């Protein structure tokens, strides 16, 4: 896969608005500043031969110590710093009593180096070492994690940053890696057992009778709408499966009280490499008082776009530039999508400075649009009412109610089934594991994410993203592959096309180098970050030829997202929801690309 970066045109665009600073970063900033900016120092490994050891470790947060599975004894795992063009050998020593693995998330590697047991390789047996070796053919912000069992929930994840071979088109004076994650003292198998017993177990923000009498943004749902949700046996407050009821949200392994702090000098351009390494948490990220200019998504440069907040799905990465000019501290807020809790860190000129921590905002509530009826609404339901200007929202799709629009829809819906199996395509099985089928799903790449329609400032949407360089393969796709994201909230079953991977499903097959469109249709009422291994795909968002290239895409509830794929990586690849327990519950497929190298074409 070519990483053809038109750096010249980037610099000409002056898109960062950083006139004059463009070429100062011939050396990577981290090398110039060492770890001075990162407090405490993030362990870093680099070079052509890297040794990693997976083992059990104690992990302490919030004054309590639990059991973790870590790499080189730290959580998150050490920062792996590579350089585009090098060939790297990674010696991974598994000192657990169970199989383990490392998947290099977002890296374009030969399939046998991709690190998925049972697909790419047999896995790393207890007390053995596996050597990964591959050329580094890209640059940007990525990460790595276990693909075995539920080790990722236990701490087996870390950041991976690749410096470009040529001067970085993004200018910055300092950088910080921001690894977001979720920690629980419960064993991940207990998480699953609780959820299988009671799908809403961790939701402590359900609708209540007394809550309905209180005023408050989250309790504006009419009795008629509540009844309609009840009739469907759906909970409009079911935003996240696992919540702050058990999670401590971490920033670089630090809980909110530990307050990880990254330093800056006022006036510096600070690059934040933000990675969502959480097992089950989608975050809303903002730094009150500090606009963020997004320069890269999933490690791929994009045209700069300045926002106040963005939602980041599991496994997504965003690089942003911030430029604090005052001698004061700022709070980095990573609020969980259901707003049950937050990760918190500080950017400050000096250690020990803090800024106010904003309270959690009211929890959002699902709407008709999240139910898959976006295409049936008769209101200002366009994906883009949430523009840069505060107050221009129409609220018709707002997370917090929008009485008029929702009301009308609720009534028009009252006679219809939320599970009309006549909508189901041939390849899909609408059985026990499918509790809803989106009736009229719409493309939701113009939506900022659940609960972010009316927050009063600019929130990133996928339609804001344009690749910096023209897309390398501009052939139009010749066929469409539809994949339905399906689930049963009550039984905690998750699948593609109604069938769990364990049921022995057919792979999704592509011919090598074919250009195809994959349409992801979310029949469920949850946001699913869908990840394809081994490839970057072009997210179809209206910017033909400059689609953002991603490895993971958030598909909003009841909505659709499409990507164009050049299947240029022969082999077998994992394709799954990156909510770890959804994947574990069956939302997983194999994607095959044939012919392989050396096969007669």
């Amino acid at each position, binding site marked *: 896969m070519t990483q053809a970066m038109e750096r010249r045109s980037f610099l000409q*665009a002056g*898109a960062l608005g950083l006139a004059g600073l463009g070429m100062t970063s011939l050396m990577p900033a981290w090398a110039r500043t060492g770890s001075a900016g990162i407090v405490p120092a993030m362990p870093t490994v680099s070079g052509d031969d890297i040794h990693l050891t997976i083992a059990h470790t104690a992990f302490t947060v919030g004054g309590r110590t639990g059991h973790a599975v870590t790499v080189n004894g730290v959580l998150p795992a050490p920062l792996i710093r590579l350089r585009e063009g090098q060939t790297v050998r990674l010696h991974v020593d598994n000192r657990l009593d169970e199989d383990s693995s490392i998947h290099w998330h977002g890296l374009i590697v030969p*399939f046998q180096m991709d690190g*998925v*047991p*049972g697909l790419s*390789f047999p*896995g790393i047996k207890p007390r053995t070492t596996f050597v990964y070796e591959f050329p580094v053919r890209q640059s940007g912000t990525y990460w790595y994690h276990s693909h075995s069992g539920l080790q990722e929930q236990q701490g087996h994840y870390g950041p991976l940053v690749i410096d470009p071979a040529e001067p970085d088109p993004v200018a910055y004076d300092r950088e910080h890696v921001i690894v977001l994650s979720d920690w629980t003292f419960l064993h991940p198998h207990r998480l699953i057992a609780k959820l*299988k*017993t*009671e799908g809403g177990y961790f939701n*402590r923000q*359900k609708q209540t*009778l007394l809550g309905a009498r209180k005023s408050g943004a989250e309790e504006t749902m009419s009795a008629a709408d509540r009844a309609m949700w*009840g009739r469907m*046996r759906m909970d409009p407050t079911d935003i996240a499966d696992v919540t702050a009821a058990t999670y401590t949200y971490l920033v670089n392994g630090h809980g909110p009280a530990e307050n990880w702090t990254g330093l800056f000098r006022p006036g510096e351009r600070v690059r934040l490499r933000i990675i969502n390494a959480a097992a089950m948490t989608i975050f809303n990220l903002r730094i009150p008082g500090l606009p963020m200019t997004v320069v890269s998504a999933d490690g791929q440069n994009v045209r*700069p776009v300045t926002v106040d907040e963005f939602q980041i799905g599991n496994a997504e990465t965003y690089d942003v530039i911030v430029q604090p000019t005052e001698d004061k501290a700022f709070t980095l807020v990573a609020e969980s999508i259901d707003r049950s809790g937050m990760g918190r860190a500080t950017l400050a000129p000096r250690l020990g400075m803090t800024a106010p921590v904003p309270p959690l905002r009211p929890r959002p509530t699902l709407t008709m649009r999240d139910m898959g009826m976006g295409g*049936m609404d008769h209101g*200002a*339901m*366009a*994906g883009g009412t949430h*523009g840069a200007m505060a107050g221009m929202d*129409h609220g018709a799709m707002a997370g917090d109610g929008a009485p008029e629009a929702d009301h009308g829809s609720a009534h028009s819906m009252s006679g219809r089934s939320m599970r009309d199996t006549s909508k189901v*395509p041939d390849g899909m099985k609408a*059985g*026990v*594991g499918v*509790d809803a089928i989106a009736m*009229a799903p*719409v*493309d939701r790449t*113009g939506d900022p994410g659940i609960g972010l329609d009316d927050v009063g400032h600019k929130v990133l949407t996928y339609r*804001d993203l344009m690749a910096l360089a023209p897309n390398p393969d501009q052939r*139009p796709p010749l*066929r*469409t592959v539809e994949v339905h994201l399906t689930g049963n909230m*009550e*039984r905690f079953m998750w*699948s593609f096309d109604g069938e*769990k991977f*364990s049921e022995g499903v057919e792979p999704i*097959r592509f011919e090598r180098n074919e250009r195809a469109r994959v*349409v992801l249709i979310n029949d469920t009422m949850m946001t699913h970050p869908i990840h394809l291994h081994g490839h970057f795909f072009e997210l*179809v968002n*209206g*910017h*033909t*030829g400059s689609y953002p290239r991603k490895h993971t895409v958030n598909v909003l509830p009841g909505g659709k997202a*499409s990507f164009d794929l050049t299947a240029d990586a022969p*082999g077998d690849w994992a394709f799954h929801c990156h909510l770890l327990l959804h994947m*574990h*519950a069956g939302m*997983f497929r194999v994607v*095959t*690309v*044939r012919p*392989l190298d050396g*096969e007669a*074409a």
Partner: protein
Amino acid sequence: MKHLLGILLLTGMSPALAQHDHHPAPPAPADSHARHEGSEESGHPADHALPAEPPASPPADPHAGHDRSIAPDGAGSAAHAGHEPTVADPPVSPPSPAALGGPSHAADGIFGAKEMAEARRIVRKEHGDIRVGAILIDRLEAIIRDGKDGYAWHAQGWYGGDIDRLWIKSQGEGRFGDAVEEAEVQALWSHALDPWWNLQAGIRQDIRAGTDRTYAVLGVQGLAPYWFEAGGALFLSDKGDVTARFEVDYDQRLTQKLILQPAMEVNLAAQEIPELGIGAGLSTAEVGLRLRYAFVPEVAPYVGVQYERAFGDTADVRRARGEAAGGWGLLIGIRAWF
């Protein structure tokens, strides 16, 4: 409104617009975004023939390049008509013959078929084949009533996968100081029928003084619309008599932790069963109202009231014994699961 229409028309939106001219118009910024915004809509089926628009020249300001998609989306409610950004989807079609060729499993050629087969077995099991179990003590309560305080329990446990499970149920009651009045245990195979309902079949063993009975059980249990937990079962005893039981309850959350649960149980018999004191038809019914406080979801003590009574011949049997046909009870108990 006027300039919005202009933009839409210019970019070939007229067919969609015609269907949607009643939409309230979102504000359309009249600036450089317009060009992008227009291209958003060229994916409408009516515009299939339009060439894909090349990207606009690099934006001059940091906000250009992200359009606010001014046109209404969801153009039409047909399955895919609302799929708006850019080029229409090509037809859904199966993979080419070349895609189907080659080895079934790419890694076999590198690591060996035998080792990969074992790893494949594990990866398959780890992605969907989850087996877990739970025990739910729905009620464990003292019943305070006129002169004859007693106790009762209602519990179930299960183990298995998503579709098939072993399901154990037990319920019973007695009076303090006496032997257990009646107790039953059911061992059932539970099979998921649809997203919410399970078919349950198996056996039930009753243990009561002198009149042990064994039954075949066929029932359903699940979640009805509006979140009613419900169940019903038919019982055929080894003596040939047929009875039935229906139960329903509902959790009304007052706060996150305070939950009011109305519940109802009805027992029916197809024939008279004199040795059990049961008449034909509706034999007994019970309504209860329990208010529990869930300190944690797993542990919730409660207080409540219930009214239980017998009907028809069953009531006559009770009266003949000098008992009342029915009566109120105060409940103090605990609900727990793990």
